[in-house]
């Protein structure tokens, strides 16, 4: 009984690590979708579907992660502690963060399953929560046990964090608002004789200034 309980405890830790890898990949794929990029070899819908199916796989793994943690008697974690933040007897803070991230994840998954019904704005607002759910899950992983603080798993964790930070940076400092692209496009398609590099001065010239220059 004791050894099978330990086995369950190990299973919980292992599935937790798999979850971390899966959710990191899902976040990276999500950024890829938003930047309209492709994965080599896959059609465009491939990135969208991969993002969706890996997130559903992550749900599966996180379910096993939670159930094994509850069922094993090595450590006392109730179902309530797993989904209600900070009510656990064992490591209330770190486990609580896990509960928070699982709640956010549930919101993400449920809204995404019915996204066509709830409309663009509702879905988008909830989906932004992903950028909170992931770091909270990482903090939970680091704080709950020593697994990620040593050896190869430490490198895995650091790599994941760096990858997600890079992806967020890429997303945040990327595209310009569409209304500001318009003057550049007009200038870019103007005939060669009048084509000038689109400098800040040109972009902020008044219409009258541009017309006067043309006369």
């Amino acid at each position, binding site marked *: 009984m004791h050894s099978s309980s330990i086995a369950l405890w190990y299973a919980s830790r292992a599935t937790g690590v798999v979850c971390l890898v899966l959710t990191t990949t899902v976040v990276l794929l999500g950024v890829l*979708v938003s930047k*309209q990029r492709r994965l080599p070899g896959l*059609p*465009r*819908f491939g990135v*969208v*579907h991969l993002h969706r199916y890996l997130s559903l796989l992550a749900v599966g793994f996180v379910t096993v992660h939670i159930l094994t943690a509850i069922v094993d008697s090595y450590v006392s974690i109730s179902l309530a502690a797993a989904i209600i933040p900070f009510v656990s007897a064992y490591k209330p803070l770190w486990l609580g963060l896990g509960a928070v991230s699982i709640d956010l994840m549930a919101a993400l998954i449920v809204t995404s399953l019915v*996204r*066509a019904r709830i409309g*663009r704005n509702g879905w988008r607002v909830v989906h932004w929560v992903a950028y909170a759910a992931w770091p909270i899950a990482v903090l939970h992983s680091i704080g709950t046990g020593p697994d990620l603080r040593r050896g190869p798993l430490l490198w895995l964790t650091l790599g994941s964090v760096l990858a997600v930070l890079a992806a967020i940076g890429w997303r945040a400092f990327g595209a310009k608002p569409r209304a500001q692209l318009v003057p550049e496009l007009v200038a870019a398609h103007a005939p060669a004789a009048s084509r000038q590099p689109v400098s800040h001065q040109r972009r902020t010239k008044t219409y009258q200034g541009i017309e006067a220059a043309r006369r």
Partner: protein
Amino acid sequence: MATKPAIHLKVNPIACSGHGVCAELLPELISLDEWGYPLVSDKPVPAGLARQAKRTVTDCPALALLITRKEHDERA
């Protein structure tokens, strides 16, 4: 057996950012213009494609593809 009213596909051009996923999933009804934006057929969606059309609507990353019962233009 009552027939269901015909459905049409419509694009919200403000939401659409030219991902192009729709044209891959429903090439029978959607193609892309030379700038990557969807050209959606005005005709009603054939019954056999209705399920695929609904899946395409769900899969649009920008949720810019819509199913509508009306055919006419609502723009001001």
